[in-house]
């Protein structure tokens, strides 16, 4: 199956899955709208508290996707899983990792004509403030801003990313804002980045 045929069929599959009542659980028993892309996996860097919270929430947010922990290095995950999934034409992923890990995944995804469709950088600012820089399709800006303003923003982010549209060609915008929820997540040097690759 080539890349182009897959894109068309995965949208169709997502729509029919929604029609069949497939859903993602956001948090505390809340059910949100069906995902608009087939999310294969949530990926998180287990070295960072915020990413661990993201991964835990991701596993609950979308019953069809699992979560995979990495320790900075994506070699095993990519060789053993992602590569096979992407060769088969599927495997959209959401993640929270370091920027360098995302860069590595982004370059590997290009081999399958996949790309980063949403990116949010989370950097420690002063005190408990976290600065977020979001590049996303317009439809995702409001839900992401709402998620990132929450005290448990890593978990909320996972839930929102599960609803991200795939490659719909919509224009993306970049916005920067801050939230006062950093201390709990020990945001120090690494700038973490959450993303969707589809």
């Amino acid at each position, binding site marked *: 199956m080539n890349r182009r045929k897959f894109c068309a069929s995965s949208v169709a599959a997502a729509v029919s899955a929604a029609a069949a009542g497939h859903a993602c659980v956001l948090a505390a028993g809340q059910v949100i709208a069906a995902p608009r892309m087939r999310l294969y996996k949530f990926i998180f860097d287990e070295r960072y508290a915020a990413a661990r919270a993201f991964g835990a929430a991701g596993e609950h947010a979308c019953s069809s996707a699992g979560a995979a922990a990495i320790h*900075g290095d994506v070699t095993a995950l990519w060789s053993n899983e992602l590569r096979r999934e992407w060769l088969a034409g599927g495997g959209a992923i959401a993640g929270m990792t370091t*920027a360098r890990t995302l860069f590595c995944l982004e370059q590997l995804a290009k081999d399958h*004509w996949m790309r980063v469709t949403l990116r949010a950088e989370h950097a420690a600012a002063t005190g408990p403030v976290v600065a977020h820089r979001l590049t996303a399709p317009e439809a995702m800006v409001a839900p992401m801003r709402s998620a990132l303003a929450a005290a448990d923003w890593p978990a909320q982010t996972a839930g929102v990313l599960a609803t991200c549209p795939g490659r719909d060609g919509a224009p993306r915008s970049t916005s920067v804002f801050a939230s006062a929820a950093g201390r709990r997540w020990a945001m120090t040097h*690494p700038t973490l980045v959450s993303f969707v690759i589809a």
Partner: protein
Amino acid sequence: MKLPAGVSSADFASAIAEFERAVGKAWVFTSDEDVDLYRDAFSPFLHEPEELVASAALAPATTEEVQQIVRIANRFSIPLYPISTGKNLGYGGSAPAYSGSVVVDLKRMNRVIEVNEANAFALVEPGVSYFDLYRHIQERKLKVWIDCPDPGWGSVIGNALDRGGGYTTASYRNHFDSHCGMEIVLPNGELLRTGMGAIPNAKTWQQYKSGCGPWIDGIFSQSNFGIVTKMGFWLMPEPEAYLRGTVSLTRYGDLSAMVETLNYLENARITTGFPDIASPLNGYPPIGQVQLWNETGPPPMTEEHRKLLSSAKLGYSPELEAYGLKSGIPYWQLWLSFHGPAEVIEAQWQATQRHFAKFEHVKFSVVDRVKLPIDPSRAASYHEPELGVPSLRAFSIGARSPWNPTPSKGHMWFSPIVPRTGEAIIEANRVFSEAARELDMPLFRSFCMPACFWERSFIFILATPVAEDPAINKRYREGFKKLIAIGGQQGWGEYRTAPVFQKSVMDVYSFNDHVLQRFHETLKDAIDPNGILSPGRYAIWPRHLREKQS
């Protein structure tokens, strides 16, 4: 969409329609979103209009489709730029050397055609990455190793054609040297096979390199004379054991004799693994430990040590040397590796120690003594490429961390070749540190050690960062070009470079009024009269574009 210069939109549209008929509409990419994927992820023209970009991309699946593409390109004068997996980051990546070119993305041509265990060779297509070849070998439990660069995501053919290198033994580390036989689509669409492959039904295509008559393989490396669609490589039989040891020396003045001893041992094939020279007293790690340092941080350094380093000249001061002696920190540390039967490599290690015993205060240490094959799950305990295992851990280098709080947006590799002597290490540091200081370039800010990828010479491989600020990138590009020229004045040339610097690098190779350049152009005019293949790659321009460039 950026059209190729000199091509009308009508002709371009007609060419695209013909490309679609040749490879299938699904594999012709013209939307901005798709063509964006072929931008150089490390472009030194970040955010600038001069960034080299493609006009479209094609992804053929077979040699026959490549031939059709080339014939179409000739009819409509469309410049093409073939890439294998497009991972040549730091040396230009997937972006063309001539803006507006149509990228020919060969990654769908990803067959491992043959791996012959008994004769230890492989024949692959350009879309085969080191990971792909490694997996193929592991799945079939074949007892051969690959030699891969770091990271291992690149194309086996692509890396060899840009003359990259790896980390195992000398016979396999030089990737172009270890190839045997090629198949090429020429710019007129004809198919050529080199070496013994020029014999129909050849039986030794991957066993005997040069065939008969002129050995032309070299002209297809770092050039634009053809699109390589198959290439053979000699592989290392899986060694029985691996030993890695260190030789530590305490005096600055030991450097030259240490290099001479290493050279003898390498040239006599007493040590054949990747030699790695560190300077612990100067805080310079061996290449094999860099990713570990980036993951866990460099070893702690006392304030006294830091102060002594800051006042050292070309890595030396008597006080620094005395501090090293007192603290047990070696001035120089040579990491050597040995591959083979256990009894053989033990004997080689013993001989190595005997040759280094002449140095005062020398210390030897065995870091690893490993029976092979190791459990793949343990490969991460080592610098994997030295064991023929591809990895992506190199991406911890440059990652933001407490010891690297402002990582760059990418880098350009400055990689001059210098003589294999201790004197050359010091001289290169002197010349380039002075020049970098005057040019305000972030290179050679402290004493640097070269790498030993190649036998018989040293190479410095240093990263010039790509910044977010175009003004800084412009300054770095100009500084980089000046460093290339300064190296050339010393008789040192670059071994490989990104398209933005290819003219500057080739200008250094100016013997006899640039006769090499003129020879390349003569070949280009003969082989590719319409100038459709990778115009400008390594400063080889087709006639119709040549005058504009000079």
